């Protein structure tokens, strides 16, 4: 089981919230290690979320929803 974390894109504001802009996978999909899972935004900066491991992914945050940097947004098992 591997946690997928919302990237820390803003060092200046570590507690800033961001948005999960785009999920490239659906809940329950099989993913490969390193696969592009999502695109996120914190203010003006966008970032990629890659799968930390291979397995089944469960999404914990919906598209266009806010989340905190470092928050667990999905799990791969």
């Amino acid at each position, binding site marked *: 089981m591997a946690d997928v974390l919302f990237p820390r894109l803003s060092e200046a504001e570590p507690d800033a919230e961001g948005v999960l802009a*785009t999920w*490239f996978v659906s809940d329950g999909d099989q993913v490969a290690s390193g696969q592009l899972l999502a695109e996120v935004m914190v203010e003006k900066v966008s970032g990629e979320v890659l799968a930390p491991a291979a397995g089944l992914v469960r999404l914990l945050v919906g598209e266009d929803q806010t989340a905190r940097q470092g928050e667990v947004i999905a799990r791969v098992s």
Partner: protein
Amino acid sequence: MSATETTTASGAQAGQAERRLTTARAISEGIAQEMERDPGVVVLGEDVGAYGGIFGATGGLLERFGPDRVLDTPISETAFIGLGIGAAVEGMRPIVELMFADFFGVCMDQIYNHMAKIHFESGGNVKVPMVLTMAAGGGYSDAEQHSQCLWGTFAHLPGMKVVVPSNPADAKGLMISAIRDDNPVVYVFHKGVMGLPWMAKNPRSIAHVPEEPYETPIGKATVAREGTDATVITLSLSVHHTLDVADKMAKQDGVDLEVIDLRSLVPLDTETVLSSVARTGRLLVVDEDYQSFGLSGEIAARVAETDPGLLRAPLRRVAVPDVPIPYARSLEQAVLPTPERIEAAVHDLLKA
């Protein structure tokens, strides 16, 4: 889409792992695969390097191929588009990005008097295998000079192919086709279909894209939705709005629309347009470019000059009504071809 094809909602074939990308990523993937295959492919433009293109079309290319093949240019469209032409004449395959279609005014001579005409002027002896990409379209309040589509203007002038993908899979396939084409190809991508994280997006901006390189034919439209009651000819972001309207009207009004995604303006797939109109007898054109003297009139003319009897009712068109695109959201939304305007036009078309 036939019921016997096993394809996921996002477009992947049965047995193929679904691989969803934004249109922006699909474009840069297509470019990257061609750059791997052919050392003559280079990318030029403003902010195409470290920034990855203002609208994401060249993301990751600088990191992968280096500054010798992905070049940030000064703000000199005439010079760098002309440079692309000269490089193409000498056998390279440059991809040159014009940041906004709206900027063509500062460099149009190189585009329409040189890029588009050299092959013809030389009696076919000189080729210009170049791709000119540009971001187009409105809906996010960028106002008069940064929201235009203008594909009708490029399509009107002889000598350049014009392609306008609506979705990620076509975006990659058309980019690969455009790069491999020995003719100059104007490749217009609507900012609203790019799937950018910083702009409101239609869900169809993220879809399955096959991993291997493939060509999507230039000059062939596709039937985005089969139907019987009316034909809607459209392109780019308007394909998504039209499909949304079609889904809604199927449920609410029992209306069954056929939606044709043109994908290319030059060459224009007249055959697909005519065969659809012949079956449904009713025609709506949805085009985010300006209404008069453009694409929607061209479609109407091609139907009328083939057989006006194909139409059981006068045709309708939804386009930007010959007005510069206003800044205020209330005004912009009144002139763009929104789902509301499309739905009203369909009702109007079916009533007549």
